[in-house]
């Protein structure tokens, strides 16, 4: 219909032209990258150094429990459970007499909480100290020899290949994880941002009474659908701009690498193509860049981008109409929206939580189920797709998930449309759930 096109055009153009669109398009990725970098930096930098007093009456551990930058073990003899705090130690570790072949309980007393990772770390150190001590007592291999054997044996590296019949594709779990997480997170974030935009747009039309003027020319349903499509198109435009931005940044970053390094990378590439692995001769940096390039090239970007577009659109359509329905029933008071929004925002937040679990185990049953149900599939499926189609996600799962999502958004749009067409012209009291149910399914 011609009129729906006019509505889509208006919604799209007024938003694209808005300065906030351009700003948010370029600022959002920067903020996300800075946010991630900031957290990583703080996580590395923010590790507190712990001084732990060791009360080791039998002297088993003196040479085996080694201090490093994160934990310092204080073996000074004067320290005991009574005075460790005065001597600047955050905890005291009590080593009992070791009984061979028995599980021994070590006790740690603290004034200041150490945190889960530190306790884990400590346990590992204790256990390796016990092993080392045992090796020494049984075989007489000295501590220093043991260390040099350890250092020499630190060579193994597991490489993963996804098995696609004829050719095995070198894959990078890390990159898949990053892509999956980014896509899932983006869909999660954008569903909220654009959903809220739809809601605000609808409620603006209602409170400014524009709806009444328009509804005398266009039926409420095309008005709602036009708004949803127009705003969705803004979201897709933003995504395309991000892809362009990504390609530009990738190219620029390459230009900044030193020429010799690139030459080396090319050498590896040629060597690899000819079939002789001369990796050992190249520098570590060049090898890493080569591997990164290879896994970037090995990723099926077309699949990921088209799936992203489908799942972003599907998820957006699924939720946007619900946001529109909420916008249509609330009046001037934005607080009214809060309680109505809860049943819409909860599934989105849950999907995000499920996604962060599913990304650890993309083939698990939670991941599979959550990627089928339309409430969570847009976010969860994107996290799985990054691990590969049809290896991690079989074709039938992908198609079923897509079909269910399409059916899901048709259903929510239909239902929301019925609430919307009544709500948009009703002023006064906020309707109850019961009345809204009646609008949706009875009237």
């Amino acid at each position, binding site marked *: 219909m011609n009129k729906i096109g006019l509505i889509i055009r208006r919604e799209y153009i007024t938003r694209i032209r808005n300065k906030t669109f351009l700003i948010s398009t370029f600022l959002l990725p920067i903020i996300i990258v800075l946010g991630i970098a900031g957290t990583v930096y703080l996580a590395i930098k923010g590790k507190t150094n712990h001084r732990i007093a060791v009360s080791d009456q039998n002297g088993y551990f003196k040479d085996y429990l080694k201090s490093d930058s994160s934990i310092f073990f204080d073996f000074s003899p004067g320290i005991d459970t009574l005075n460790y705090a005065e001597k600047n130690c955050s905890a005291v570790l009590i080593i009992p007499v070791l009984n061979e072949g028995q599980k021994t309980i070590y006790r740690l007393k603290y004034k200041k909480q150490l945190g889960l990772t530190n306790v884990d770390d400590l346990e590992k150190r204790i256990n390796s100290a016990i092993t080392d001590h045992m090796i020494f007592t049984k075989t007489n291999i000295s501590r220093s020899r043991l260390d040099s054997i350890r250092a020499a044996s630190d060579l193994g590296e597991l490489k993963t290949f996804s098995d696609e019949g004829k050719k095995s594709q070198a894959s990078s779990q890390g990159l898949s994880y990053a892509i999956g997480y980014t896509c899932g997170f983006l869909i999660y974030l954008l569903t909220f941002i654009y959903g809220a935009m739809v809601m605000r747009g609808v409620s603006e039309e209602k409170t400014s*009474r*524009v709806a*009444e*003027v328009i509804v*005398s020319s*266009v*039926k409420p349903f095309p008005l709602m659908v036009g708004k949803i499509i127009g705003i969705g198109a803004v979201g897709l435009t933003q995504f395309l701009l991000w892809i362009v931005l990504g390609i530009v940044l990738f190219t620029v970053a390459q230009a900044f690498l030193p020429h010799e390094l690139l030459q080396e990378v090319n050498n590896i590439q040629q060597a690899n193509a000819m079939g002789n692995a001369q990796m050992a001769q190249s520098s570590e940096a060049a090898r890493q860049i080569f591997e990164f390039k290879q896994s970037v090239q090995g990723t099926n970007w077309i699949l990921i981008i088209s799936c992203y577009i489908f799942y972003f659109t599907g998820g957006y359509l699924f939720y946007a109409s619900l946001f529109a329905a909420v916008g249509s029933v609330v009046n001037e008071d934005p607080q009214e929206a809060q309680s109505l929004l809860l049943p819409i925002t909860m599934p989105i937040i849950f999907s995000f939580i499920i996604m962060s679990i599913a990304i650890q185990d993309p083939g698990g049953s939670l991941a599979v189920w959550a990627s089928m149900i339309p409430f969570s599939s847009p976010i969860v499926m994107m996290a799985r797709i990054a691990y590969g189609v049809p290896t991690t996600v079989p074709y039938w799962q992908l198609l079923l998930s897509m079909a269910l999502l399409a059916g899901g958004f048709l259903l929510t749009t239909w239902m929301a449309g019925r609430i919307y067409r009544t709500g948009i012209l009703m002023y006064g009291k906020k309707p109850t759930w019961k009345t809204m149910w009646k609008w949706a399914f009875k009237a």
Partner: protein
Amino acid sequence: MSMLELAHLKKYFATQKAVDDISFTVEKGTIFGLLGPNGAGKTTLIRMITGIFYPDEGNILLNGNKFKADEDSARIGYMPEERGLYKKMKIGEQAIYFARLKGLTASEANKQVKDWFVRFEMQSWWNKKIEDLSKGMAQKLQFVITVLHKPELIILDEPFSGLDPVNANLIKDEIFRLAANGSSIIFSTHRMEQVEEICNQIILINKGKKILDGTVVNVKQEFKENLFRITANPLPAHFPEDLFEVLSKKEESLTIRIKNGHTPNEVLRYFIDQQSNVSAFTELLPSLNEIFIKLVEGTSLSRQFQPIQS
């Protein structure tokens, strides 16, 4: 054939019979006053005519054909009481957008908007936004948007509220011009003096029912109470009580009610016989305001909610 014909229109909501069996016709080129107290059902009635609501029962005929909201929306222009414009959209674009929603092509819409902006001296507003306009200016724009697409039926809900006398006159003249060009105008307001000045025909609804229908002249005749004002010098010393009753006296003017069965000529003859020099003698017709109050008064002031068994 009437421009608009409503037959036995009904719309019941959960707690109210908003419109309960209302019929009336609007002829081509007339200015039609739709009157009624708050909550009488005017807005619901208008929303049915504009196709926003479907009537539960009854028919709406436009030029003799059944009204179809989708096709006929281009023939109707509706200006709701509470103005509806996008605050952040540029005024020129906004006017074109609304015109195109009514089915005008881009170039046609552009031309119409430009013409109207020139007529209302609004050219400098083109790139401004609604939030830059005063309430009265927004009102003018809303009126332009309502009539841009040359609708045959124009529905105006309180079009003058918030307008200064100059702009109110501007819009009033436009209303007369549009009616003279053949548009029918339904004009809903509480301001009875405006109705008297502008409308040819009125209906009055209360509690969802029509309680009065007719031309302004006929309605006034119908509700006249044989009141006259007579100015004379000197006033007769004595008034014949079987002929008329004096309601008030102010200097040389009397307001009188002529008793049933007597005519104004008899009263005049009496004054002349009494050697009284009559300088003015006029019939006092009731104002619509008085008729309105008389008809609506006595019914409970605000509309009560009632359960509907349907």
